[in-house]
């Protein structure tokens, strides 16, 4: 990539406007390398924005699932924190099948205070918030 071609496409979603400038190695016309800055590139912005849209889409889905009584708030907060079952299981120090069980509303209502506390800490919220996603 030549120095004159360096894109300066800001991210216009979430707080992407605050993104630090990215260091790039680009070439002068004679092929010699120089370090420069870029505010971003349309192609990478498309990909990142799409990843966020997927999270927002899933989050809306999980909220609906909770309201319908299909799943416990754990699924909602897991998505909100950009986690999957594997990551969440590692954080609460449980097997994946145990976390999957906790996502069932019937199992969730019987979880011990200690277990709830563990989830609340991982999601950085209170137990009340955990039980009632806003």
């Amino acid at each position, binding site marked *: 990539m030549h120095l004159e071609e360096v894109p300066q496409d800001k991210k216009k979603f979430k707080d992407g406007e605050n993104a*630090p400038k990215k*260091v*790039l190695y680009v070439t002068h016309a004679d092929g010699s*390398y120089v370090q420069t800055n870029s505010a971003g*590139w349309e192609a*990478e912005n498309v990909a*990142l924005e799409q990843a*966020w849209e997927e999270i927002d889409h899933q989050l809306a889905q999980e909220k609906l699932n909770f309201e319908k009584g299909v799943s416990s708030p754990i699924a909602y907060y897991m998505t909100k924190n950009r986690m999957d079952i594997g990551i969440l299981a*590692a954080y609460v120090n449980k097997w994946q099948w145990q976390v999957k069980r906790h996502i069932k509303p019937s199992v969730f209502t019987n979880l011990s205070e200690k277990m709830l506390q563990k989830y609340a800490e991982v999601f950085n919220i209170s137990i009340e918030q955990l039980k009632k996603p806003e």
Partner: protein
Amino acid sequence: MIIPFEHKPQAHCESGVTSNLLRFYGLPISEPLAFGIGSGLFFAHLPFVKINGVPGTAYRIYPGQIFKNVCKRLEVTAKSETFSSVEKGMQRLKENIQQGIPTGCQVSVFYLPFLPEVFRFHFNAHNLVIHGEENNIFHVSDPVMDDKCIIAYDDLAKARFAKGTPEPKGRMYYITKVPDTLDLPMAIKLGIKQTCFFMKSPPLPWFGVNAIKFLSKQIQKYPEKLEPRKATLYLGNLIRMQEEIGTGGAGFRFLYAAFLQEAASITQNQNLGELSQTLTAIGDQWRNFAYHTARLCKARTSDVVGYKELSKQLYSIYESEKAFYNQLAKVY
């Protein structure tokens, strides 16, 4: 105590941290040199390792290797520690700072409050330097940031002891002794040889140049195998690994080309200079690939022709890279 550490923004976290740490000890190793000597360049596509439901793709060697390789090849003595307890890990870091040793840490980006939310995912292989601490506020030099930052004890503890893959386990690393003289030509040679070996020889289809061919075949199957939504997510992840913050663009190819150019002038070997230009052209091919991939992502269709076209582009990148590493291997 706050150590007077010079912060320099860099393209990639680990080679950036390595370069910044070495410069602190008076060794003028640029980021491209650190990346090349540390054999940072790689390619891997692992369809069976799913990260948030998407197959893992890497354009670089696994975390920790660059710093380790650079130190070994420049005969710099360094230490790396991991911890089973958070308190111990944080205590050891504080002790290092008190002794005036700027210390590299492997962290998860998810728990770094100074980064914009938009970048904060559970990516556990980020690197930064801690160069000060006062009343449990730590001073940070993060190569992807424009300036130095600060981070509170609790946030840093969470970031260093994040769970998932790879688990940092509080890994911290620092330089203990630097040599009086550097044998740069030798270090460059060793770095290049290992990169050629890693790119050319793995007999498995998931690593090295073969993985580029493998991915080009996989992409063709996306529109049949996956629903459109999933298929575009798979594609989007390829771009993100290739272009997002910390890559320097084009999946590190430009960074390595910059290394080859610097290496050419250090070793007075014109072949390396020519190969730098070849790799620059390959980097442009990668960017072209990202551009077309993004267009397909935006269209959100299972446009079979579009996927076939991407697959073809990737196959031609495979051919270019294969030829490139064959030539590079001949230099030494």
